[in-house]
């Protein structure tokens, strides 16, 4: 059961359109809200002209800072600095980025609201914004708070200067990446419905309980008065982790109008309003002896944030634990730009940081004339070099060796431009990957129902990742029944509390709670000398007990093992590219990910997760770039024709290997979580392959043809 390649239990619902996403709930008397956005990046609104919008057909209300309902503490009641979601809730006239919400038009129909929103005019006292990352670099300042609440912003071990001095070879390089916008397939959306003082939100989210708490605080109402429902979320990648402005605006309007209001963002509105991976500028210094032993590592990251929140991309966390090097410094700095606040984006920190670290390691291997895998093995961290703790499990050595064997690494020619296939230079490259194996408290309820079905409930989320399927498997496995006998329910704050579905938490946290609840139910049934293996025997058991469901609840949380072990997933990515020798175009022709990510609950959905992550990384590497006008801060390529996510023609056959790993420490199931790591390492593997193909080292993402074409060492 666990470990079987079970097809998605919600697959049929999805392909037939019957899966209900939050914007699809049929609600009576629904009104449609459309957000009005600023057309300057920085300044104050001096006047609104809403007359035309108000008199436009179908318009129910037009809200701006002039008339929006006042919220407690000007809408900042739920703020948790440094980056606690300062939203745009029409409580003042300040404008902090171009496209910021400055109004909400509500109408009988979506089209009417859209048109009326275009009729709202604002006058501004406008100031010159700071948009361009390179220009802003002199204003970089150290980030002081702990990262993600628990990691120091800067670290130092050993003596960096001495390590660099002792090195035979040194790398000193700068790596840059632009703002990358998540672009989940489903746009962000919310339906808000009040029944007296009770609010129901149908929300596209990764965290129903988080939304519930946040919204209660924002409105100053008891948490018990808010219910959040989210049965399916159409992709999120971090951008739906906490509520953005549209959720509050929908609830605000619904309360004022005493009728349900739906707000669905347009694709264009998904640029700036709902977070993105920030710009990063990373300075890497490596020092090594002739035999490859690292003597020094310095990793300083500067990432962009908004003018009004300190959101830091946790870029160097992976560098702290990746290699056994005793002299190391890491640090994070921020620059403030007049753009929307960034947020978590798949493999946050690691995706950016590993690009720089593993590109620099490749450069070091070239300098030392060493095989890149050999260099990594030379510095293999047998225990966590930062904490000194033992790994809970680590199969990176096998990832390197088995991955290399399957990919044909031994056929790699170290000399660039030595393999030609028609018009293209062919090259291969590799990268390591890592991501923390995190776990958070979670609860689940398992019930044997009068009809003989087993219903398991936990307020987790289905983001397209396969949560319904693996939770069903876990419960069925513990109870010894076929999966058809189990129905798993999620995405509702009336169900037991669970953490955010982010950071690869779900399988570990919710999975454990579901497992323990199902085990508890199993034990309870066993104590009753019951038998639930057939539907008839299960029904009899409930009837015998008086007809009420038999239930068991589990509250699972991580324990002391978290302090005793360092828990991380690892992997090795291999990529082959064909770079057109004349045109500079890069085509990924093969890719393999070899992963040690704990026990695999379902190899079919897990493989899809990894492939999805690797394709996400491919976009980050070759095409994705959120373009802003440096003078105005306008988001220029805010649609899917111009913001280039990979299409099928860009994606080759992708191969995935899982090491046989069952982590004895993380949780009773032995999982480590797989959502984030798929994106990590892809960028460096491809960049290193491009170098191997052409001799051109591109340190600035995305790797577009002009960066290769313009290189002096590149000529046909």
């Amino acid at each position, binding site marked *: 059961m666990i470990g079987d390649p079970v097809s998605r239990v919600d697959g049929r619902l999805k392909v037939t359109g019957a899966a209900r996403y939050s914007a699809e709930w049929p609600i009576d008397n629904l009104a449609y809200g459309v957000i009005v956005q600023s*057309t300057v990046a920085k300044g104050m609104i001096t006047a609104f002209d809403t007359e035309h919008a108000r008199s436009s*057909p179908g318009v129910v209300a037009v809200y701006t800072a002039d008339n929006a309902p006042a919220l407690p503490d000007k809408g900042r009641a739920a703020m948790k600095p440094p980056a606690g979601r300062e939203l745009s809730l029409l409580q003042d006239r300040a404008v902090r980025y*171009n496209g910021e919400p400055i109004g909400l038009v509500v109408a009988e129909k979506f*089209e009417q609201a*859209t*048109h009326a929103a*275009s009729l709202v005019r604002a006058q501004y006292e406008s100031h010159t914004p700071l948009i361009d990352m390179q220009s802003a670099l002199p204003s970089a300042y150290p980030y002081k708070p702990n990262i993600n609440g628990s990691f120091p912003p800067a670290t130092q071990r050993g003596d960096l200067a001495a390590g660099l001095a002792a090195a035979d070879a040194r790398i000193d390089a700068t790596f840059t990446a632009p703002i990358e916008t998540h672009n989940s397939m489903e746009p962000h959306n919310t339906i808000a419905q009040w029944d007296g003082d009770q609010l129901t939100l149908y929300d596209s989210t990764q965290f129903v309980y988080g939304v519930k708490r946040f919204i209660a605080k924002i409105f100053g109402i008891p948490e018990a008065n808010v219910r959040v429902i989210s049965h399916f979320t159409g992709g999120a990648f971090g951008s739906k982790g906490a509520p953005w402005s549209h959720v509050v605006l929908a609830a605000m309007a619904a309360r004022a109008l005493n009728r349900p209001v739906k707000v669905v963002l347009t694709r264009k509105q998904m640029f700036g309003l709902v977070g993105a991976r920030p710009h990063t500028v990373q300075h890497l210094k490596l020092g090594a002896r002739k035999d490859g032993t690292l003597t020094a590592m310095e990793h300083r990251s500067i990432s962009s944030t908004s003018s009004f929140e300190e959101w830091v991309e946790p870029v160097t966390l992976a560098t702290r634990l990746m290699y056994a090097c005793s002299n190391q410094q890491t640090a994070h700095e921020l620059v403030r730009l007049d753009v929307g606040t960034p947020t978590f984006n798949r493999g946050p920190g690691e995706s950016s940081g590993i690009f720089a670290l593993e590109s620099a390691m490749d450069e070091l291997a070239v300098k030392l004339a060493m095989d890149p895998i050999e260099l990594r093995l030379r510095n293999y961290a047998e225990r966590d070099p930062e904490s000194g703790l033992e790994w809970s499990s680590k199969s990176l050595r096998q990832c390197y060796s088995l991955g290399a064997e399957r990919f044909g690494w031994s056929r790699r020619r170290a000399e660039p431009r030595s393999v030609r296939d028609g*018009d293209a230079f062919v090259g291969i490259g590799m990268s390591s990957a890592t991501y923390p194996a995190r776990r958070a408290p979670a609860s689940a309820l398992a019930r044997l129902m009068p009809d003989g079905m087993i219903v398991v409930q936990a307020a987790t989320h289905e983001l397209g990742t396969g949560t319904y399927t693996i939770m069903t498997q876990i419960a069925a496995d513990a109870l010894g029944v076929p999966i058809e006998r189990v129905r798993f329910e999620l995405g509702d704050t009336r169900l037991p509390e669970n953490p955010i579905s982010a950071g690869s938490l779900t399988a570990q946290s919710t999975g454990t709670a579901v497992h323990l609840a199902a085990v508890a139910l199993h034990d309870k049934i066993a104590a009753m000398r019951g038998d639930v293996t057939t539907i008839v025997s299960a029904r009899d058991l409930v009837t015998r007990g008086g007809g009420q469901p038999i239930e068991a609840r589990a509250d699972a949380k991580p324990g002391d093992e978290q302090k005793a072990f360092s828990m991380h997933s690892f992997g090795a990515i291999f990529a082959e590219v064909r770079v057109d020798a*004349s*045109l*500079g*175009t890069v*085509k990924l022709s093969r890719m393999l990910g070899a992963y040690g990510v704990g026990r695999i609950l379902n190899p079919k959905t897990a493989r899809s997760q990894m492939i999805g992550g690797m394709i996400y990384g491919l976009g980050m590497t*070759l*095409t994705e770039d959120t*373009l*802003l*006008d*440096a*003078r*105005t801060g*306008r988001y*220029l*390529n805010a649609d899917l*024709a*111009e913001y*280039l996510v*990979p*299409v*099928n*023609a*860009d994606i080759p056959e992708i191969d995935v290997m899982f090491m046989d790993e069952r982590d004895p420490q993380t949780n009773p199931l032995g999982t480590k979580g797989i959502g984030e790591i798929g994106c990590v390492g892809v960028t460096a593997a491809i960049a290193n392959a491009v170098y191997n193909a052409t001799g051109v080292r591109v340190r600035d993402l995305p790797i*577009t*043809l*002009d960066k290769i*074409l*313009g290189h002096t060492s590149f000529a*046909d």
Partner: protein
Amino acid sequence: MHPFLYTLAADEPTARRIAATDPAAAFIAGGTTLIDLMKLNVEHPAQLVDITRLPLAKVEELPDGGIRVGAMVRNSDLANHMLIQARYPVLSQALLAGASPQLRNMATTGGNILQRTRCWYFRDTATPCNKRDPGSGCSALHGQNRIHAVLGASDHCIATHASDMCVALAALGAIVRIHGPSGDRALPFSIFHLVPGAHPERETALQHGELIVGIDIPRLPFATRSVYLKVRDRRSYAFALASAAVALDIRDGIIRDARVALGGVATKPWRSQAAESALVGKTAGSAAYHAAAMAALEGAVPRARNAFKIELAKRTLMRALARAGALA
């Protein structure tokens, strides 16, 4: 999107009468450009006259051996038409290099000739743009102009023409057939599209109320040896950074005649007679192709972020010529 009237025209006279009497009317066919720009409030016609029911969806042979294509022929149908594939492979390839299958199934021949630029400033009503709002200024000139034109631009506008089909038609010397209030006209492709000059808002020679009914592609036997090559940031569903449509007449190793047009680098579909002249009479091979590439990009003007396009266009053209030259 502004509210608008919609009329489904039953016949051509009706369609033209409505358009001629309403200065704010626009014809709509596939709508792949127009609806998109209406949603962005870049276009706001007061009335749409749907011409998709007009009997203009035929591909016919002309007595002289050319091909007549109706304005309503869908891009996907034209690309896959046997006559086009056999006689003008460059046109079929150009069509298939454009957009996505869904868009090609909607987009029409007449509409594609009128495809608007993808300049992001043109598409954003919050920024100045001389093409959208004459006299407001060109935001691209000193802005994000990596995708912009190096040929045919002015200080008023550096937006590229977005169509792939038009690049092939420019090379093939197509004739645009027009019916209008003051009679019927047939305009050679070379004068149909206009360079921006001081009036980037004027993109074609078409007058209000005139209807494109189709195109004629003249007989060009050597177009069987033709190639369209498109270079872009993504391998499908992306606009050209540079593209080349070429046809070569090679006999006994000597180039007797040639057709060359460039896309992605110019403000209109860019036929280069200079490149053609550089090829004719020369031995087919890299020396001639290189000379043609140099001639085609002669006078190209780079901006802050698009200088690479000059070299890219040269290499794209050389590659296209080499491929055409290698065809049997």
